[in-house]
């Protein structure tokens, strides 16, 4: 039942990213409760003496009854980090062969990640980019941050072509604190160039996760007849493609591209995750949590 609500096609029918993010995260966390491997968010860490101004809700009243002194319970989940989501809105991200296109999927994923980061009281931020940085929400734990993020994600429009060099160089300046950088893109560029562009983030001690968002039609195109294809990032470029080519040569090339990007990312110490837009969102969240847990 919950898995059903993580299906992108189902989520697409829900209006409002906040609701989507809640649906995804709550559903996902509810799923986690049944798993014996997780449960970090409420794990007991230590007792701390009560200071003025501390929230009385965290006072351990049992200890107070025994010792007549106030102690606060602290949990691991309360450890803060900075999460920066980089959302690619280039024209190619608007491609979709079914109900949910890649940008929508990236939006769902970004909003879910932000929502989850907010739940963890992590400082979440957002950079929307295509050929340049389109929008920037600095990471923060302030009240209302989640709404700012969701609003920015919702407002993200399809842009022009992708250029990793310009925006990445630009937003390296914004990152002053170590944290988690999540890149959501279809990475239509040379893997070498992508890694070279993203790698500097890693040098600064950031954990970098590359979510490679691809439509199933991009991974394994299924053409019944010869097709005249037009490049979405360059409308002037078009090609007539035969089903045989799409079935054999193209697949070989895209597989090589994915493989190359994955291996190069891993060798650069980054995490790479291929997201198929036809598959449930929890796979992305799981990846995030896995990395997030490693940082604590």
């Amino acid at each position, binding site marked *: 039942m919950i898995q059903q609500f993580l299906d992108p096609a189902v989520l697409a029918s829900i209006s409002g990213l906040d609701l989507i993010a809640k649906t995804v995260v709550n559903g996902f966390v509810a799923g986690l409760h049944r798993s014996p491997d997780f449960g970090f968010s409420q794990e007991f860490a230590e007792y701390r003496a009560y200071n003025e101004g501390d929230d009385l809700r965290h006072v351990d009243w049992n200890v107070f009854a025994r010792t007549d002194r106030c102690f606060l319970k602290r949990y691991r989940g309360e450890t803060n980090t900075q999460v920066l989501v980089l959302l690619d809105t280039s024209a190619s991200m608007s491609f979709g062969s079914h109900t949910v296109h890649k940008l929508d999927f990236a939006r769902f994923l970004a909003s879910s990640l932000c929502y989850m980061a907010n739940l963890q009281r992590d400082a979440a931020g957002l950079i929307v980019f295509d050929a340049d940085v389109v929008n920037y929400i600095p990471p923060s734990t302030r009240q209302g941050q989640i709404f700012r993020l969701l609003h920015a994600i919702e407002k993200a429009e399809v842009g022009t072509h992708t250029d990793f060099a310009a925006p990445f160089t630009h937003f390296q300046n914004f990152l002053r604190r170590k944290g988690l950088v999540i890149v959501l893109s279809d990475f239509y560029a040379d893997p070498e160039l992508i890694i070279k562009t993203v790698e500097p983030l890693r040098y600064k001690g950031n954990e970098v996760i590359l979510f490679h968002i691809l439509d199933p039609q991009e991974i394994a195109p*299924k053409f*019944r007849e010869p097709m005249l294809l037009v490049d979405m990032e360059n409308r002037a470029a078009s090609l007539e493609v035969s089903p045989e080519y799409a079935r054999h040569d193209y697949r070989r*090339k895209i597989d090589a591209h994915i493989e190359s990007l994955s291996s190069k990312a891993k060798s650069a110490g980054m995490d790479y995750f291929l997201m198929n837009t036809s598959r449930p969102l929890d796979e992305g969240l799981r990846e995030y949590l896995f990395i997030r847990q490693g940082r604590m």
Partner: protein
Amino acid sequence: MGFLTPLFLGGFLAVGLPIWLHLLRKHKTTPTPFSSLMFFERREQSSIKHRRLRYLLLFALRTLLLILIALAFAQPYIQRKLLPATRASRITVLAIDNSLSMRAGGRLDQAKRMAKSEVAGLRPGERAEVLAFGSRVQLLSEITDDHAPLNGGIDAVEPSDARTSYAELVRSLRSIAQAAKQPLEVHLYSDMQQSGMPSNFNDLRVSADVRMELHPIDARPEPNFTVENVVAPRRVYDNKKARVLATIAGFDNQKSMRRVSLVLNQREIESKTVEVPENGRATVEFVSLEPPFGPNRGEVRIDSADALPNDDHFYFSVEHVEPRHVLFVHENGNTRGLFYFQNALESSGKSAFVIDPATVDQTANIAPAKYAFVVLSDVSSLPPAFENELRGYVRNGGSVLITLGSRAVSNNRVPVADTRVEGTSYTGREGERFQTAAWLDTSHPAILKDARWDEVKFYWAIRLNPGKARVAARLSDGTPLLLDEQSGEGHILVFASTLDNVENDFPVHKCCFVPFVEQTAHYLGRLDDTQAAVFVGAFEELRDSKEKGAAVDVLDPRGERALSLEEAARAQNIQFTMAGFYDIRRPSGRNEVVAVNADRRESDLTPAPPEALNIWKSMAQGTASTNGESGEAQSKPFSLWWYVMLAVLALAVVESLLGNRHLSVDKEAA
């Protein structure tokens, strides 16, 4: 080339479908946006061209397939020029009449000579066959161009006692023409007897590819006398002299005297001289027939001294047998029924049965199996042992007649039959309150077809539940009067009244009572209806259902076995093919002599009028072969439907294979 149903050519419009599918639809390619073309290359164009070529092949196949289907529906044909039928391409049939009339004055020999001269005239390569016909057609050679077997076939034609049937010949010729699928030229050698012509002239119509040449035998009209018919008893039961009545007929004759003899077992018993009028008949009566016990061979013959001696004898068989016994059971002191029944049986003229009366008390030690049938005349009850014996007797094929009166009703059930008596009704004699037999089933063997029982008054009515029994007569209030119930192999006939002139006045109505008793005795005693003589071509049943597998011996008039061993064990009947006496030994061990005579229509040697023969000839001119002889090539429509359909089938297979290859691409894509 033409089309039988050209309207279907409109189906060519269906060609538009593949044109739309392959050409119009294919070129309507709309640009499809794709996220990035960085993994596509220009060199795919050649692949597309190759694919288009393959599609074009499929397109061509589909178009051709639709055209051919439309063509097949239009049923194309071509006019095929046929080579003129040569004499070598047709079959000459030599049909020789071997009926009884052909025995007269060497007619058959003349026909054979004429047929042989026709064989001699056949050119090398011309094929012919020989057949003989009377009432049936007999093939005597295969279709061959070798003269030896043809002449052998002609020599093998033997005179027969059958009658001429030209209709049967024509029927066979039609079959031969149909089987050979070639024109026939038939040469008919016959005396062209008028009596052999069918009543319907259409029966002489041959198919278009049969041409008939009639060769009437050159014979002068000759007077012919014959014993046309003999009326003699089939069975004689007493030692009195039997009566034989013979009819002598003359054809084309002058008034003349003829000596007629009655011969029994090849011994002349009596002879008389009779005057036969011109083209007329005379009757001779012999009253001195006194056959010895067993089967006897009788014959009436005349000294005709004419050209056809084979019709001067008329054979008949007469058998002297002991009369069969009938057990008549009655109550002690009630002999009225016996009196009337016995008198009726004796006055019927046939003394085939002798009545053995017995009271109920005397039946205890009687075995009913030796009786032809048993009559239970208004008996109240029977000794149980005898009743059981009677039931077994009926199951094994015996028959019982039960009459019911006031005594029988006292037991409330019908003996042997065990039918329940539902009630009785008495209508007094006074005031004419009687009932009559309102309905008779004239198809029942015990009731004559023209029987009238309207005058008979029934005063005592007994109501029975018929159950499965067949109701043969009903009274005016619907009460069943005569019931016939089959039990095992035998019959129980229940007459729901008496034969004693007390409860009805049936016995005093001689006009209906005597025939009823005679018919009932005939039916229950299983007397056969065989005639003293039959004609050639008649059939005789050899065995009944119980005698399956048992051998039947049949000796023909020449003393030879008429059936092979296999036929003797299996044949259900036999057809008599020659005149004379057939000896039949049945599986039951009983010997029978069947007298067979030639059909007397053959005795009239008058030929058919020339006008009739001319019409027949003109009808059988064989249009196909006649045209062929003119030497002009004729054309015949030749249907191409099969070829078109075969092409459609082949194309459909190729289209399926080719289409499947495309579909397999699509399947993977899907």
